[in-house]
């Protein structure tokens, strides 16, 4: 094999951008076909193709980093610089929903009764389950930091246990949110209160589920399989950053929508 004289990762030609782009085409066209002809075939095809692409693309990144040693310190720095704008873009995604919420709630229109929460809406009590949810997410932020420190100190068993605990807390949060949704006295169709509430908290819930799968399906599994060392575990750090981001978004949701907004 030829010797490499630099620390940068020259990637192999990959089929995944092509299959991923095709999956996007099939999903969007499939959605249109579903709406117009009540057939979900094309959309299902697109979904399967997207899942296959996700699995194989990320599997290859793990192979390049853990098995082939391509993730040298400068390459890891590049990965960090990639994760930062990704999370920033997610922040702006949520900013849009907060904007919609404050636009509607700071100057409630006469149609809403000129007040917030609008006339006829009984909001959820912020000091019941939502407060418990806040505590659960804050606790999971602690356990993910515990996992990180265990990882850095080479405490394998402790890292696995604290990571598992973080994942359990994430699942508990999702369960509690599902129960809240089921019990809520208003729906997404109940005017601007319902739509801003369910779109903002719903997308947050989706991000909790994504973060939990990133921690459980990828990081815990990789930690059990000895992929992370005390020096090199950026995959875990990226998941932890993402988890903290989800945590912070919840704090803003809790303070503005659940507490101030009720």
């Amino acid at each position, binding site marked *: *094999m030829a010797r490499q004289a630099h620390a940068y990762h020259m990637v*192999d*030609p*990959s*089929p*995944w951008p*092509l*299959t991923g782009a*095709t999956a996007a*085409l*099939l999903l969007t*066209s*499939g959605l*249109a*076909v579903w709406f*117009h*002809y009540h057939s979900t*075939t*094309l959309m299902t*095809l*697109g979904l*399967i*193709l997207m899942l*296959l*692409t996700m699995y*194989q693309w990320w599997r*290859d990144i793990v*192979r*390049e980093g*853990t*098995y*082939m*040693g391509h993730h040298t*310190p400068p390459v890891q*720095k590049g990965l*960090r610089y990639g994760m930062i704008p990704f999370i920033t873009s997610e922040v702006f995604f949520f900013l849009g929903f907060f904007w919609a919420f404050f636009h509607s709630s700071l100057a409630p229109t006469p149609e809403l009764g000129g007040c917030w929460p609008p006339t006829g809406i009984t909001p959820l009590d912020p000091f019941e389950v939502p407060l418990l949810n806040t505590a659960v997410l804050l606790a999971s932020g602690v356990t993910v930091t515990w996992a990180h420190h265990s990882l*850095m*100190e*080479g*405490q*394998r*068993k402790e890292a*696995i246990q604290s990571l598992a605990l973080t994942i359990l807390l994430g699942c508990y949060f999702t369960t509690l949110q599902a129960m809240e949704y089921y019990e809520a006295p208003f729906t997404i169709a109940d005017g601007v209160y319902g739509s801003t509430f369910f779109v903002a908290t719903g997308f947050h819930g989706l991000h909790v589920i994504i973060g939990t799968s990133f921690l459980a399906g990828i990081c815990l599994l990789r930690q*059990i*399989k*000895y*992929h992370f*060392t*005390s*020096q090199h575990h950026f995959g875990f750090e990226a998941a932890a950053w993402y988890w903290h981001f989800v945590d912070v978004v919840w704090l803003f949701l809790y303070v503005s929508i659940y507490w101030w907004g009720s």
Partner: protein
Amino acid sequence: MYYKFSGFTQRLTGSAPSTAYVPQGLRPGIPAESPAMVFATPTKVVSEVGTTVEYLGANKVPDLQRIFQGNVMPVHLKMGVPDKLLYRTTMALTIGGTLYCLLALYIAAQPRK
């Protein structure tokens, strides 16, 4: 307390004793003098792996590293038959799906009867 230079923050950060002697990304130009050995107290070996080596299965990473590094195939086909099967299924879905999609869009573009 031991320190190492963090390439990311460009500052000193805390580190494990083992890494303080071999900082990441630096190769010692002059061989460091090993400290004089002390035999008076029981020797403690600082190990990356720790004591729970076999907790939840054995470490297969070194074997996999050997397999992956001694192999000229592109990264998505390095594991042989299972990789090839998965890749071909994905490619078949890509080509078949595109044709089906174009057909569906063509039919959807026809005026209603």
